[in-house]
């Protein structure tokens, strides 16, 4: 059992290469919590923008009639990875975790596994 701040702190501290993380409500586009980021990387802006990514994917799945649940989305840049993990808790529908990783310092498979664990512990 963990509150938001603790979970975000744990993610940033334990996931190798993590530089920022946000818990985002994808209907409103608001970040309910952010940690890390920098002056040149506004997590609030990233959160709002990535709600469009999540929504587009969900809409496509509806159009295709896919019944599976969307678990995560990986975006790779030349120097960063962005990992989006949908939250599936009791009342957690409508939220996702957004993780920014430094590509040179991170292990993608491990980060994905750890983020899944953090999502499970986040009781929202």
């Amino acid at each position: 059992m963990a509150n938001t701040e603790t979970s975000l702190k744990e993610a940033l501290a334990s996931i190798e290469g993590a530089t920022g993380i946000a818990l985002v409500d994808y209907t409103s586009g608001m970040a309910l919590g952010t940690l890390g980021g920098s002056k040149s990387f506004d997590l609030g802006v990233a959160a709002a923008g990535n709600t469009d990514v999540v929504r587009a994917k969900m809409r496509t799945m509806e159009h295709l009639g896919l019944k599976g649940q969307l678990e995560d989305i990986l975006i790779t840049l030349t120097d960063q990875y962005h990992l989006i993990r949908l939250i599936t808790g009791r009342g957690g529908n409508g939220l996702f975790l957004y993780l920014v990783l430094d590509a040179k310092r991170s292990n993608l498979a491990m980060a994905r596994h750890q983020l899944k664990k953090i999502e499970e512990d986040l009781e929202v």
Partner: protein
Amino acid sequence: MTTVRTTTPAPPPRLPVRDKAAALDRGWGGVSPMLTRLAAERATGILVRERGTLHLADGQVVHAESPSAPGLDTLLTPHGGDPAPGALELCHLTALYDAAYFTLAPSSTPGRFRYGSAVGLDGPLALGAVRPVPVAALERETLRRRDLLHRIWPDPTTDEAPLTRPDRVGAPPCPARRRAVLARVDGVRTALDIARELGRPAFHTLVDVRRLAAAGVVSPRPPTPAEAPPPPPQPLLETEVVDPHITLLKRLRDALEAL
């Protein structure tokens, strides 16, 4: 002709004007100058506006209520009787931003501020630790939300009117959460009614409804013949007679605010 050089007296002090450049820099401004001032002076008390109230402690917002938004208790219903601390915290934050969105909507009457304590510890705050929200963050988010709704579908009629589905067939597939909203559109319920039934924030329901309106699936119900024409306005009570001075002052205020 000789120029007469007079010693110019010191110019009168400039009247205070709203610094638009600074407002642009910080990305907000103009939601409520009164609230901005209260934040600057780190005020504690309750701001009462036309569509809701904000509770301030030390210049930060700790609680918000609006008749246009479901309360914390409603938002907690999907979480069951024993919400996890994380859920409680997020619901509190969500309820605060939701009620503040409507409280900070443009109003036709000035707000009032009552200095004193914000909500008591036996009030809603007793439910869980509240994370105080800086006024700047709240105003910025409120403006972002207004803009988001406008970009989805610029007609605000669906925000408050009873909603109807003109054409029940041919609805495009939509995500489960929006489908739940659509299923409750029956020509009677408003977006707020649906939000309450689903235990969701009002703003989120407005977003879903505007997306449905943009897709042509949902529209505001046209007034039934019984409702139109609207009843003639009640004769103004003696106390409501509009004093010309008040009208002038209101126009002045509006002009100044528009500067």
